[in-house]
């Protein structure tokens, strides 16, 4: 069957088998391997992508069900060379260790902040409660998302300059 969707702002059309899962469509057909494929059982959340702005576990959505929808993957977070505040926050607060859970965590964080720009730490914990960090770095993930909430347009120019000169 033929499906079409918008991925990170780009319209794509592909011929697929109806049984192809969205995570495999994104990774194998579109070669966007930033979306990770983890437990395959809706538990770990590393395959989270945004579907019309809402986080979904792409191992439990058929690519066919995403036909006509807008998908955002981790590759779509940055605006050119400018990182999304969430990405910047994960850098500033060391929100990743091995990095396997990071794409899903950052997309859930983006959706949370779009919905609730000033979340309490408990609300952040609740938002990421369907995702697993096997390095157990949850405290720094929560701090990274808080950093992003406190810097809605990312780092200031000053900070960037300092980094460049450092």
């Amino acid at each position: 069957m033929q499906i079409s969707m918008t991925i990170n702002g780009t319209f794509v059309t592909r011929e697929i088998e109806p049984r192809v899962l969205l995570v495999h469509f994104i990774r194998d057909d579109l070669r966007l391997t930033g979306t990770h494929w983890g437990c395959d059982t809706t538990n770990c959340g590393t395959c989270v992508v945004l579907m019309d702005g809402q986080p979904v576990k792409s191992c439990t959505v058929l690519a066919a069900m995403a036909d006509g929808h807008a998908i955002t993957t981790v590759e779509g977070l940055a605006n050119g060379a400018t990182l999304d505040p969430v990405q910047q926050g994960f850098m500033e607060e060391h929100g990743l260790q091995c990095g396997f859970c990071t794409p899903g965590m950052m997309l859930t964080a983006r959706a949370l902040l779009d919905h609730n720009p000033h979340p309490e730490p408990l609300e952040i914990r609740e938002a990421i409660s369907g995702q697993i960090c096997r390095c157990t770095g949850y405290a720094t993930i929560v701090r990274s998302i808080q950093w992003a909430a406190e810097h809605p347009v990312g780092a200031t120019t000053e900070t960037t300059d300092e980094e460049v000169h450092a």
Partner: protein
Amino acid sequence: MQIPAPFDYVRASSVDNALALLDRHGAESRVVAGGHSLLPMMKLRLARPDWLIDINDLFELDYLLVDKDVLRIGAMTRHTTLLESDDIKRLFPIITDAERVIADPIVRNRGTIGGSLCQADPAEDLSTVCHVLEAMAVVRGPAGERMLSMADFHRGPYETAVAQNELLIEVRIPIRTGSSSAYEKVERRVGDWAVAAAGASVSLDSAGTISRVAVGLTAVGLDRNVTEVEAVLVGQAPTEELFTEAGRLASLACDPLADQRGPIDYKRHLADELTRRVVRAACRRAAASVSEITI
């Protein structure tokens, strides 16, 4: 890698279209809503439909309406919508309590009330909630609509009265004055099925006496309300002794199995403790809605 067996996919454009597709493709067709029960089963090849009929475009079934003394919930209403609804929180806090602990926030973005009820998993929370709220299920088929009580709708584990060529389209919950409700679950971690859970709905009369009560249990082998509790509580003023007795009766009425989530005596203990808590919480909330009563 878990991949479903091959199937043909079709998207329904309306309820009538979905019914026509079910009729045309027959016994080997299945409806998919949020897909968070059916797709994992298909990935494990526990379900192998030849046709998958996607009803996610049926926005006509995504609504919450207060219609006089009934709350009408469209079958495609997502868990997240139920959790965030102020009407639900005010009228049926049991649904808010339950939604907070159903799966995880991301799964709740996809899952629907209709899908949960039709899956009829014995550890599924909304079936218990709908039982204690005395909800009615509106089921549509080629011959028209029929209204079923939860007792008639829910036939047992993974089995409902919805025929192959029918669709659950709405859940109707009666709104009663002086009433409230509560739900509590024990789970090993976020997203796991319940070890045990309990729900209660209580109505108080103007004197603060319990005029109606319904208690239900999840994941402990009881497909019906704990009617034993109703007989003892109705006509009494709510007291701690009464909550204790409700818990004792619930633990006797349930029939849990030992599994990786715990042994039988632990699950009976949870049925007891959680029943006490939800009956107490429902009584307090109901009393708060009838301002002159305090418990």
